[in-house]
């Protein structure tokens, strides 16, 4: 069973739960920028939650299905159609043989996910199907999809398609500041400077991609200019380079770096980074480490409870 890419969309890639265990070789995790939505899309069609699916950015692809398939769309709202029929989001739908799934623009976020029952079959590289755009490997030849690409589907479904409780995903579109904990070099910044960072609203710049979101707004400066000995960068680190404009690093981020990290986005809010678009406003709020851990535990519990009983 194959799927033909008739239109590629703006930046459509194959992604999964990410590539771990290779940071010491300089290899970043990659994987879905909004992992929570990828997991929901996969669970809807009965795949393993971290199975390989398509991540679309701002403008989605057009996909022709050789045979009928069970498909689910999750993530940012996106106008998707088969013929003149609108495809509902966050639900498993049957796409008939020969039909074309037309994905439009995302409206309330940057990224949407198309999971197909069985998962997308690409060669595994270092244990993952995720596309590494900087390294040019993984996914389909390490690049964004192109018109004419043909995707093979796997036989990796391990459950039955599921349904969500109505209104279950309201939680996901929660507005408000992105929650952070103090960063590895948080003490390089005076309390006043840190408070300024937390009190400011930033704008996501046009130079935002899966490796990092450059922000524009209030300048943040460390107490003194000193050289940081290059060290490891945690996922979601907020680093402050010499131009004093913070950068939030994520999924495709470099594994080590030399700029001080003032704060770090908490794991429970990492998926929200993947939904930020250029020109979106974003603010940050500090939480304690126990609060961060509790938020993640609650999110994992929530993900178990959003389904209708089979």
């Amino acid at each position, binding site marked *: 069973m194959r799927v033909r890419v008739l239109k590629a969309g703006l930046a459509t890639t194959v992604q999964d739960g990410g590539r771990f265990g290779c940071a*010491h070789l*300089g290899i970043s995790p990659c994987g879905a920028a909004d992992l929570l939505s990828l997991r929901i899309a996969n669970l809807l069609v009965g795949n393993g939650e971290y199975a390989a699916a398509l991540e679309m950015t701002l403008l989605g692809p057009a996909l022709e299905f050789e045979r009928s398939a069970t498909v689910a769309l999750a993530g940012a709202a996106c106008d998707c159609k088969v013929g003149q029929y609108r495809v509902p989001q966050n639900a498993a739908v049957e796409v008939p043989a020969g039909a074309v799934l037309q994905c439009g623009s995302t409206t309330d976020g940057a990224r949407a996910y198309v999971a197909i029952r069985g998962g997308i079959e690409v060669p595994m590289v270092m244990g993952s199907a995720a596309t590494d755009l*900087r*390294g040019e*490997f993984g996914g389909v030849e390490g690049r964004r999809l192109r018109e004419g690409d043909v995707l093979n589907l796997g036989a990796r479904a391990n459950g039955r398609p599921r349904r969500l409780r109505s209104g279950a995903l309201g939680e996901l579109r929660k507005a408000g500041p992105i929650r952070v904990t103090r960063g590895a070099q948080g003490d390089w910044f005076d309390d006043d400077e840190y408070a300024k960072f937390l009190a400011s609203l930033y704008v996501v710049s046009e130079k935002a991609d899966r490796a990092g979101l450059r922000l524009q707004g209030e300048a943040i400066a460390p107490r003194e200019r000193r050289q940081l*000995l290059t060290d490891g960068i*945690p996922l979601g680190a907020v680093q402050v380079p010499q131009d004093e404009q913070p950068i939030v690093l994520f999924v495709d981020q470099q594994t080590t770096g030399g700029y001080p990290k003032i704060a770090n986005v908490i794991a429970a809010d990492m998926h929200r980074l993947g939904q930020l678009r250029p020109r979106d406003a974003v603010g940050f709020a500090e939480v304690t480490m126990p609060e961060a851990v509790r938020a993640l535990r609650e999110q994992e519990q929530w993900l178990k409870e959003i389904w209708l009983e089979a």
Partner: protein
Amino acid sequence: MEMIAASDSSLLVTLGEAMSRETTAAVLRLFRALQARGDERIRNLHPGYVSLLVDFDPRVTGHKEMGALVTSLVSADFVGADTEARMVEIPVCYGGEFGPDVADVAVHAGMAEEEVVRLHSEALYDVCFLGFTGGFAYLGGMPPELSMPRLATPRHRVEAGSVGIAGGQTGIYPSVTPGGWRLIGRTPLRIFDAKAARPTRVLPGDRVRFVTIKRAEYERLAVRG
């Protein structure tokens, strides 16, 4: 040793204040001891010059548990001594089309181009760690006379295998990228191949020597890949 929670999913273990061969070796011992455990709670290990970032799955473990694990390994002297460093020879064709900045480096250092090549290829380098991008090695041990700041304007495209100098560092570009390093030569070897069983030519803790080769030898090795 100092341990701090760098995020809710990671612990930054710092083993020294200043860059030194001893501290980098201690970081590598801890890295290897942790790696050898194959602990499923640990997702990634990022060695740096003086620190190791332990990235873990916060759903199944936390800073306390990881801290206790690190402390036990450090106090147990990281299971023995340093392993013998592997020596990796990297053939480099210096100058010419492959090293467009070698003349500038020579002027900056106040020496002849041949001297730049001699100093660079006679030194013995330590792979302190890999980072930034797939297969990029942070090498320690460049003769300080060769230090030179990056280009003011980075090049749009630097070929894979290019050998460059940036400040007091030297390194090899593992893949084609934009870059601001002063290029002095190029190796025909593939430094990074994601699909190979061993994706990177060097590993943290290896020792590296650059071996000068002529253009003909470069072409011969490049064909072999």
